[in-house]
């Protein structure tokens, strides 16, 4: 493979070239094989420091990055800003100054406000990895989703994925649908009209019922997490109605089984809302694989990015 132009930050999917995407996947595969060994560590990032900066609670993504970084022998510092002492936007520049002084090589950042990782990236020499910013982007989630899909479908081009749920407030939906689209995977979307903005993405086929979705014949069903605390009553009448209209239950699982479709979910799952306990046991669920691939993809991203910490 030809040498790629070095890149400092991973902020979104939009700016990635196909070449860069393939490079990440090529590296993620051997990292994943490493997990089968008794010693799961490589010395790639020995002496480097990774700062996990989470302004929103997240156990899964934060630990995934932590595991990825420690398997590459980096020193990891976890810094979770609790919601009670959330650093407001206006002191962002002060925070960045502090970060710059810490001289971390990699900063993994999650923030409730869209665009913050970009601001941090602009003002630091460290490599910044966006681990989710507002409704904007979650690029490593998109990468792990695509890796997972390509593992089960090596002939992924022209295959179909239906994304179900709250598109409006979902950075996962934005990033994952965009990456699927870049890779030539067809994307459909199903969800209540109040949560699926009309006409935003020309490449997403809009569905209004599971019936139509199953007629379309998706190769995977990607369920989004329903943000219970925020949305009940404002965007749909009740959890029960959401579940009835858009949730995954045994009848719909049966249809998926007929189609041979896989089930995906970014986690954490709301059992009884977007999916029933029973459906969670579906034999073609990729949810655990997604978690495992998340670590591999994040290792590949850490391996790929080039901090400029040798500069002042």
């Amino acid at each position: 493979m030809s040498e790629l132009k070095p890149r400092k930050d991973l902020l979104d999917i939009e700016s990635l070239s196909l070449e860069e995407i393939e490079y990440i996947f090529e590296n993620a595969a051997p990292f994943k094989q490493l997990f089968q060994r008794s010693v799961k560590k490589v010395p790639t990032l020995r002496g480097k420091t990774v700062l996990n900066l989470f302004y929103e609670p997240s156990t899964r993504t934060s630990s995934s990055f932590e595991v990825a970084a420690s398997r590459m022998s980096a020193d990891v510092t976890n810094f979770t800003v609790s919601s009670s002492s959330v650093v407001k936007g206006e002191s962002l520049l002060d925070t960045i100054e502090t970060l710059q002084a810490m001289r971390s090589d990699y900063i993994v950042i999650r923030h409730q406000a869209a665009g913050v990782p970009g601001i941090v990236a602009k003002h630091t020499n460290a490599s910044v990895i966006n681990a989710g910013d507002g409704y904007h982007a979650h690029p490593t989630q998109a990468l792990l989703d695509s890796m997972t899909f390509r593992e089960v479908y090596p002939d992924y081009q022209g295959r179909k994925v239906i994304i179900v749920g709250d598109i409006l407030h979902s950075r996962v939906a934005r990033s994952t649908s965009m990456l699927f689209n870049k890779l030539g995977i067809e994307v459909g979307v199903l969800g209540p009209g109040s949560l699926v903005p009309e006409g935003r993405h020309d490449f997403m086929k809009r569905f209004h019922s599971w019936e139509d979705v199953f007629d379309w014949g998706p190769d995977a069903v990607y369920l989004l997490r329903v943000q219970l605390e925020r949305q009940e009553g404002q965007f749909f009448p009740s959890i029960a109605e959401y579940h009835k209209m858009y949730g995954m239950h045994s009848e719909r699982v049966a249809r998926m089984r007929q189609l041979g479709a896989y089930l995906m979910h970014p986690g954490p799952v709301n059992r009884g809302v977007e999916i029933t306990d029973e459906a969670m046991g579906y034999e073609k669920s990729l949810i655990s694989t997604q978690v495992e691939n998340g670590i591999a993809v994040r290792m590949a991203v850490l391996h790929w990015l080039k901090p400029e910490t040798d500069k002042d």
Partner: protein
Amino acid sequence: MRLFKNGTIASEETPELQKADILVDDEGVIHQIAETIEAVDGSTTVDCDGCVIVPGMFDLNVHAREPGFEHKETLSSCGEAAIHGGVTGLVLMPDTAPPVDSGNLVKSLQDLVSEVSRIPMHTSGCLTKKREGKELAGFSGMASRGVTMLTDADHEVPCPDLLRRCMEYAKDFDLLVTTHGDTPALTKAGAINEGHVSYKLGLPGIPAISQEIALDRDIRVAQHTGARLHLQQVSTANSLKSIAAAKEAGTQVTCEVSPYHLLLTEEDADDYNTHFKMDPPLRLQSDCEALIRGLLDGAIDAIASNHAPHTEFEKSADFASAPFGISGLETTVLALFDRFISEGTFGWNLLVKKYSAEPRRIVNLDPVKIAEGEKAEFFIFDPNGETLVSKDYLKTKSPVSPFLGQTLKGAIRETVI
């Protein structure tokens, strides 16, 4: 005496510029205008060859931030910025701390203005006490101190009944009621126009109907009460349609547009640049085009900058957290020349009409005229010059502008006041 030689004079009446020399006496009064005036003893000659002499502009929508937010702007820095931008009169929005909601506060603000400002700054007063949208502010006290309009600035009066009472009450004092056109229940925490860009950036959006519904409501209430209504910062094609229809129906309604809503779209904020974050938000190209047409066909009465300074630090926050507003007094004439006049979209007469004469008429002031016996109140504009809009160039305390770093065609050589 100062003799301004070889310039051409712009006016609202005609696109043709009148070649003339202007002699201004030591009291600042235009003594003589003639095709050629010879220098007299003791007079200084200002060479205006190739330059346009333009009546001083008047900005209906200025947030000078004093009292209360002097770290953003002061009356003094605001006044200097205005002069630097060719603006020789303006209306102060009442959203200071405390808000200007009583005759006493109007008086103390006017006293402050007379101490620090070199140009007339007219005061507006709140519609409701503390701009809270609950009770009528003291209209009679403010009227007796000479407020030019009543407005809660960017706060909408939430209750239509209260707005109705405001308008009914304002009529007795022949006071202009000014509103901003925003439906808070729709705007919520929105930061940018709701559309492709808000979706792509993952930012909460402000739908066009947020302005359109509020504006429709305000027009209806004005029609019902017969009050005079001025609508600030029209931003969508549909808003303009409503206004045009209201005018057609004989409603006493006027409106203004900002230079930004004529020149820029939501796409310009594509990289989270907070210098493009304003209220109302930048909309679509089709809206810009409709607004330009409205300016040309008369549906839009005035241009107003909505000069809303914030510190660079405040604007350095992430897009959603950063405050709405940018500074505008110094770049409005330049930007409109750069993008419209120099391109032939419209002539100087339209700029003079929409940014000098009409705004003054809206608040019952006489337009500035460049004529013998009148006070000299004009700026000298060099259409062949250019201006780098840099932090050094700007006199406002808030060097927050979408044009920062750009070189615009034309240069304001001097503002004579």
